[in-house]
Every structure is written in structure tokens, then in C-alpha cells.
């Protein structure tokens, strides 16, 4: 039985939520009390808070979300400093309240990174990640020009490795967890996904250079392999994609400096 008499999975929480009207507003924490129960998801708990706020005539807390199945990558904020909350390996929409208890005090704030400016409350602008993809995160294939799918064999281990990296949902938790606000796990995931497949080979050099350099342009930090990103990644993208990215990038830069190396092949 908990402190104030709830014992059937109900709980009362104290939330310190970051409220910021727009990019110009300096922002501040505002304290709220909310009643929840253990069957709710974290976002359903925030829905309850918002319904209460609207009833009281206060503006609801803005937070991004869409699929609420952990796959679209739209949701995400820090709970007590941890991206997507204390239970790692999933998004905040898949975090359930049974992991919390009556009387808990939680601090909610948006992703903190220079490359992710706050739009409002817990909502940030992550378009920098789209621009990293634009810088080479694709295989150039004209619609209709593709060869018969089974004409290019892909060994199962390579396909599995590609899939493991391709699982990235683009939520930005890796950036939020990183002390340097680096997007290395995100970038490395795409470089590893496409580089593991024979179809991705022709553009491997340009891809690595383009995507890595776009990170700097966007204002993401440099990776120092702390591993915080892997720990919070809801899609279980492994840290090894980062050394793979570095390897592809260094090799690409060397080839670019020495055109003969490209001609000679490896």
C-alpha cells in the first residue's frame, strides 16, 4: 500500500514539465500533479494531464507523437534526464506506467541539442536528420530500372546486419543522450545499412563523405564513443555502426585524396 492510500495500480505523480511557448520564449519548468494508473502508457498519462489542463482553461502540454507503437519515431523527450524514460529499449509511447510508483516526481524536458531547436514545450525540430539523409543516405535507383530482385544475391548475414542497422526509427534519442550531442549512431546506422548490401557499394564513398560532413554543417557534436546512444536506442541499433561509419569515412577520404587507390580497387 502506497503513501496516500492508492493500492490498486493507481498513482499520483508530480511532474515538472518544460513549458516554452515558442523558439523565442526562454522557457521554464511548471509543476503539475496527475493521477494515473499502471495500465496506461506514458503518453496516455500525459493525455490525462492535458484533458485536466483544458478543463481548467490552461493550455495543454505540446508533445510530438503519432503511431504510438514505437515505430514512427515521432515521440520522444527526456524523463529525469533519460531519453524515452528509465526503461531502455523502447520509445516513450511504449513506456507503461507500471514502471513508476505512487509519489514519483518526474522531470520532463525536450531533447537538448543545438541541432534540434525547441519549437514548443517538448516539441523540437529534427529536420537536420532529414538533411543528413539527403547528403547521401540512399541508393540511386531510377524507378523502373531495377534488375530482377534475385539476380543480386545477398548473403543472409549481410542482410541481417543491414536490417539491424536499418531498424533506426530516426527519433533523435541518440543525440539527446550524447554528451556531445552527436548524431553518430543515426548516421552510422544508415551508412552500415546501405554499405552492408551489394546494392549500396557503388555510392559508398560519396555517401560516407556526404553524410559525415553534413553532421558538422548541422551543428551536431563529434563522437567520443561514450556509448550512451546505444544504451537508449529504442531500436537496438548497435554501437558498432559508429566504427563502421568511421572506417567508411576514413577510407573514403583516403581514396578521394588518391584517385589511383579508387581505380585500383581494394
Amino acid at each position, binding site marked *: 500500500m502506497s503513501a496516500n492510500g492508492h493500492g490498486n495500480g493507481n498513482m499520483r505523480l508530480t511532474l515538472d514539465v518544460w513549458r516554452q*511557448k*515558442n523558439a523565442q520564449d526562454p522557457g521554464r519548468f511548471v509543476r503539475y500533479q496527475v493521477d494515473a*494508473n499502471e*495500465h*496506461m*502508457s506514458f503518453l*496516455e498519462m500525459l*493525455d*490525462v494531464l492535458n*484533458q485536466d489542463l483544458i478543463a481548467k*482553461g*490552461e*493550455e495543454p502540454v*505540446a508533445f*510530438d507523437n*503519432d*503511431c*504510438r507503437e*514505437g*515505430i*514512427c*519515431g*515521432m515521440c520522444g523527450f527526456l524523463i529525469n534526464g533519460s531519453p524515452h524514460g528509465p526503461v531502455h529499449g*523502447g520509445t516513450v509511447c*511504449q513506456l*507503461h506506467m*507500471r514502471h513508476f510508483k505512487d509519489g514519483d516526481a518526474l522531470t520532463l524536458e525536450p531533447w537538448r541539442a543545438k541541432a534540434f531547436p525547441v*519549437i514548443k514545450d517538448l*516539441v523540437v525540430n*529534427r*529536420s537536420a*536528420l*532529414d538533411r543528413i539523409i*539527403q*547528403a547521401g*543516405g*540512399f*541508393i540511386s*535507383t531510377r*524507378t*523502373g530500372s*531495377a*534488375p*530482377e*530482385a*534475385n539476380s*543480386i*544475391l*545477398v*548473403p543472409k548475414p549481410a*542482410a*541481417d546486419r*543491414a*536490417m539491424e542497422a*536499418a*531498424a533506426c*526509427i*530516426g527519433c533523435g534519442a541518440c543525440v539527446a543522450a550524447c554528451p556531445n550531442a552527436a548524431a553518430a549512431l543515426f548516421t552510422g546506422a544508415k551508412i552500415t545499412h546501405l554499405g552492408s548490401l551489394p*546494392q*549500396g557499394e557503388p555510392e559508398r564513398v560519396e555517401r560516407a563523405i556526404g553524410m559525415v560532413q553534413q553532421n558538422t554543417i548541422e551543428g551536431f557534436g563529434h563522437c567520443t564513443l561514450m556509448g550512451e546512444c546505444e544504451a537508449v536506442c529504442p531500436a537496438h541499433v548497435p554501437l558498432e555502426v559508429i566504427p563502421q561509419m568511421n572506417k567508411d569515412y576514413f577510407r573514403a577520404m583516403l581514396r578521394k585524396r588518391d584517385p589511383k587507390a579508387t581505380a585500383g580497387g581494394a
Partner: protein
Amino acid sequence: MIIDAKTAKIPAGPIEHKWTEHKAHMKLVNPANKRKYTVIVVGTGLAGGAAAASLGELGYNVLNFCFQDSPRRAHSIAAQGGINAAKNYQNDGDSVYRLFYDTIKGGDFRAREANVHRLAEVSVNIIDQCAAQGVPFGREYGGTLANRSFGGAQVSRTFYARGQTGQQLLLGAYQALERQVAAGTVKMFARHEMLDVVLIDGRARGVVVRNLETGAIQSFIGDAVVLATGGYGNVFYLSTNAKGSNATAIWRAYKKGAFFANPCYTQIHPTCIPKSGDYQSKLTLMSESLRNDGRVWVPKKKGDTRPPHQIPEDERDYYLERVYPSFGNLAPRDVSSRQAKYRCDEGLGVGPGGLGVYLDFADAIKRLGKKVISERYGNLFEMYERITGEDPYTVPMRIYPAVHYTMGGLWVDYNLMSNVPGLFVGGEANFSDHGANRLGASALMQGLGDGYFVLPLTVGDYIASGGIAKADTNHAAFKDAERAAREKLDRLLSTNGTRTVDSFWKELGTIMWDECGMARNKESLERALTKIPALREEYWRNVKVLGSGAELNPELEKANRVGDFFELAELLCWDALQRNESCGGHFRTEYQTPDGEAQRNDSEYAYVAAWGYKGDEQAPELNKEPLVYENIQLATRSYK
């Protein structure tokens, strides 16, 4: 009015040659001129993203809009199980014809033959295209592509990327799209929501959108408009759709004259995680692929409260295997959902409220080992455990049907153009390929088929046919549409009533589920048609939306969408009421066989119901497109 084959632009000739012949006679735009034409694409899912990328690649100037913060978020991403294609890699007798036949039959003989055949034809190109883009499909050890089977088919033709096929296909389209953004052919407008389509001289010439970040309402003009904005399942409030999935784009297009076809064809998916409380915001699907290895059962005895592992084998009813011996647990979605409902109605349901059935993997784990099951479904099992706190490796999953997909949508001709010239509709937003019930792994196929292989050609044909006058966004039609959109938002903000948007939406959803859900009848539909207008009237009088229109305001976005759901809900019930038969996902309790299967009435209802808007106070007009089957014999759909 009767919509004949000529109006529907169905090419003449044998079905296997229709698409080839049609393509061969399309008008073309000179490559150097393409950049002078602007195509507006709304939506960035499989259909919209693939169309925008392909049109950009062809050289058109493409403007692409989505309400999410990035095109990669579109709800196609949540599709789990797979994508069908008639590759016959398994040598199990598959063919284009068989995929065509299965899709027509699965749709309970309510889809247009020519479109479905084309879909089956391009299905093989889709797999080639996606493999070339680097989609990490499941593979055999020899390096070839792997397949799994899916509901409603007796061949193994489904390609997959773990339980995240939709995600991987969407990321393939998204990457192709971003490549075109970098190339400058596509201009991407994320966090922009379409509020209206604008017609000039009877042609679709542009859109009015709201920048969701700043609240600014802007107009964009083009030579053609493509809507690929998904389905309307959220009219039920609780569904497996994303929270933001909405019908506003297609609904406003309907109100500008586009026909809305077969709105009553809604799919209730059998394998979703049951609802757990009133605060529930959405339902989560467990992929149909689980039925490959999971066995569905309920206790034979009413009110059996023993935990599942204590219920002996002979006290369990594996009802799908019993009722449908040849398809068993792989019976199609509508059929499986209905059987689950019957069991729960009989008081045999399990879990809270008796609204659930078991999906049990114990036999499969015994047969194949935990490792194989985890390779096949690991991420789904993890998701289930995350939500319910139960481990499906040791305790059977509890599942219950939920609204998942809408087969109805804007009416389109063979070119995927609506009856409004220049207004094209792709993917779930159109009505075209799935008839009254969609088979598993066919939504991804249709989205990409429309987006990669149909729209880029048919939009070009339309533009090359000429007659599009010069105009700009100062035209009165744009100004009027902007004003109307702004007035609607202002009204929502100034009503200042006492109820939240969610409270109305939930009430609407309850009406829809109770009166027009898995089963409907004349009485329930008439009740719904009394309740919905009353609730809608209260909505516009008593809703409470805070904040302003000049900023990011998610409540206002939602209020605007829910306003349209009220109107769509009414049309959906109208359509269900006029269709005096049962077919696929539309089950009228008055029309059923003695053993509870859907009873079609082909002599009176083998048509597409294409509704035309006649004004807010007027009844909509029913236009009929008779479904002519030249290649398939109409038959009673049996999975026994």
C-alpha cells in the same frame, strides 16, 4: 448517375494486355518541359512518397506535403507483416492471375477487375525496385529472397523485413524522396496540413495548407494534385491508425466534388491487443503473420476462469481450425474477426470483460524451438510484452479485433484520377483495389504500386493532354478557400464551450463501434444517423479549444480533423444502410447464411457506391459503377 467502363477509363481488350496497351498509348511530356509543370503531392507514405520521388525523378517540379515533422513518419511505417508479390519464388503455383484472383475473392467480389489485375502485374516490379533501393528483405541462406504465407492465400508470396516491413519499404521510398529533395526536384513541406483542394475551371489546381509550426495559411498552385493521405479508420476513435491519421484531405476534396466510394467498407483486424481502459488512446496491432504459427482458441466452457495453461487440450476450441479446415488460422481478416466476435458474444471470450481470444504459440515453440520463433516474431513478442506485461513465449497472447484499414475512399478511374480532372488519389485514400475486404500484405503492395508504377505515368498523361490554363494563387478560388479554412479554425477557437475535443471524438467512436462496427443492421444504423448529427451540432456549439491559430497548436489540429470525422461518419452509415447485403468487412446481421457467413446479393449490389456531395443540408447523391466481371466467375466466398 451510372458510371460506365468508359467513364472509369477501363481500357478495352483482354485483361492481361489492358495495362500494357494503355501505357503504350499514353501522351508524353517532353523531358525538357517537365520541369515547367508542378505536381502537388499530399502525403508521404508509401503511395505519396513513392509518387513524389518518382515524379521528381522524371523531372517534374514536385511540392510534397505532410503533417508530421518528417516524411519518414507516415503511418505506412507501422505495417508489420509483409508485402505480396506474384514472384512464385517458392514454386508453389503462384502467378499474376492467382494473385489477381485471390485479391478479387478476398475483396468479396466488390473490386474492379482491371485495377486489381494491374496491381498483380506490377507487384513483381515493386520487389525488384525495393531490393535495388537496399530494403533489407528477409533472405534464405543462399542469398535469395525469403517468403512467408499470409491470410487468405494458399501460396507463400509475402516478402518481409522482420516484423517491420512497412518501415523498411517506407524508408526506401523516403530515401528516394530525400534524394530528389537534394536534387532540387522535390520541395518538401513537413508540418504542413492540407485544409482544402482548389478547383479552377473544374480542374484541381492547388491546395490550401496550414503551416502547423507558425499557423500561417498558404496556397500552392500546380498542374495536378495527388492525394495520398491514407484512410479514415480514426472515425472510430480507437483504431490501429496513428493518432494523427485523418480524413480531412479526402473529405474536403469530397466537398469540392470528388466522389467518395464505398465508405462502409471498413476492415476490422482480428489480431490486436485488447483495450485495457477508458484512457486508452489507440489500439496496437499484432501482425497477421503471427497466425502462421500461432493457434487461435477459446475455452469450450463458458466462464472458464482457469489460466490458459491449466485448460486441457480437449477443453479448448480451436475454432478457426474447426470452422475453416482448409485455411485454418490463416482465414482472411473479416472472417477471423467475425468468428472472434461470435465466440465473445457466446460468452467464451477471455481476459477483462471477456473481450479477447487466445493466440497460442506453445505448439510452434515445441515444434520449432524458441529461437526460430524469436527470429520470426521477436520484435512483435517484445512489443506485446511491453504493452501487456505478459510474456507470449510462456503465456498465450490475448487478442481482439480492432479497426485497422478502410477499403473505401475517394472514387478513382483506371488512371487513379477522381471525377475531378487533375485530382489523383493513391494508396489507402482511394477505393480501388481491395473491394469489401483487404487481404494481408496487400496494402503495402497497393501503396507502392500506385506510387511507383501508376501515378507517375497517369499524371504525365493528364498533363500532356493539355487544357490547363495559366493561373496563380491570387485567383478568387484560392482566396475563397483560404478564407473558408480560416473561418473554420477561428470558429473552433472562439466557441469556448465546456467539452474537450477528445470527449467528443470518443463519443463519436463509441457510436460508430456500437452501431456500425463489426456488425451492423438497419436499426443500429438508423440510431447512429440520429445520434451523430446531434453530437455534431453540440460539437460546433460546445467544444473547447485553447490557444491561438498563430502557433503550433496540436489541439486545434485535432479539432479540425474531428470536425470532418463527424460528417464522414454520417456518410459511412448512409452507405452501410443502403447496402442491403453483407460483403467482406461490411456485415449486415439481416443478411447472413445459416452458419453466420456474409451473404452477398450480386444481382442488386454488385456495384461501387460513389457518393457525390450536394450541400450540407442535402442528402448526398448515390452514383453507381456496376462491377463487370469478365474474367472471374462470381462465387460464394468459402475458406472451408
